[in-house]
């Protein structure tokens, strides 16, 4: 879907970097919820966006940087539109942490009930598009897309 999305401006609506401290994630959650609602998402959809973003950033800290609090990660929010499906939000998260093969990023088997490992599954359930890429040199880029007229699995079930 990403190739069919048109950004509404050359620059992101909002972009910032933050230290890889889990204590800061509450501030990102609060900001993302406020922005999503202002961009036209329902409170229910904004909750999905917050959840996906929170899981993504937690994964960067935990897996990309091995829990280190002394690294940086960036988050950018783009207003986008899709020719058929309408408007939405694209969130791009970049880090300089450990690189992984994007094809190996998958949610675990949900029948195997154990703590942890659910973040990727959650992202794929609540967002319209989830794309992991290796950045040139080092680090990963994760793109999350949510459309106001969402076709995400969870939304189709609503």
């Amino acid at each position: 879907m990403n190739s069919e999305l048109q950004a509404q401006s050359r620059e992101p609506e909002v972009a910032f970097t933050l230290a890889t401290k889990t204590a800061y994630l509450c501030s990102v959650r609060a900001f993302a919820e406020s922005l999503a609602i202002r961009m036209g998402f329902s409170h229910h959809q904004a909750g999905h966006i917050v959840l996906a973003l929170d899981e993504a950033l937690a994964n960067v800290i935990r897996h990309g940087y091995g829990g280190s609090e002394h690294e940086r990660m960036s988050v950018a929010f783009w207003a986008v539109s899709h020719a058929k499906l309408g408007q939405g939000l694209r969130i791009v998260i970049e880090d300089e942490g450990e690189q992984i093969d994007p094809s190996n990023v998958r949610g675990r088997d949900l029948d195997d009930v154990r703590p942890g490992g659910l973040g990727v599954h959650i992202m794929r359930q609540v967002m319209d598009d989830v794309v992991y890429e290796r950045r040139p040199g080092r680090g990963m880029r994760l793109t999350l897309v949510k459309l106001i007229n969402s076709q995400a699995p969870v939304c189709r079930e609503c």
Partner: protein
Amino acid sequence: MAESTPLIIRTQRTASALVLAPQGEIATHEAPTMQQAVKEAFESRPAKVVIDLTSVSYMATSGLATLVQAAQQSNKTKIPLVLCGLQERVKAVIDISRLTSFFKIVGTQAEAGV
């Protein structure tokens, strides 16, 4: 989502149960605090552990992991575990993770037998 404040966990012991009542958000940063409270709850050998989530406005999968650990301790110790007071967003995380049937979930502390 409420403005974030540090997670507070109130503990109440009654004749029939030990009630953990966390207040705030349970995400990656707060999960270790919740995990410790759950561990101590089961170690105190109550007749039942009730986790009242009425005042939890947000839960990430790291918070959900603490509930899975609580259920595993419940199975191991044979001390029943009941969850109650789930807000919509907390319930959604459990539903999306397809863990709803894994827990005993009721509406209120009274329904949990406290």
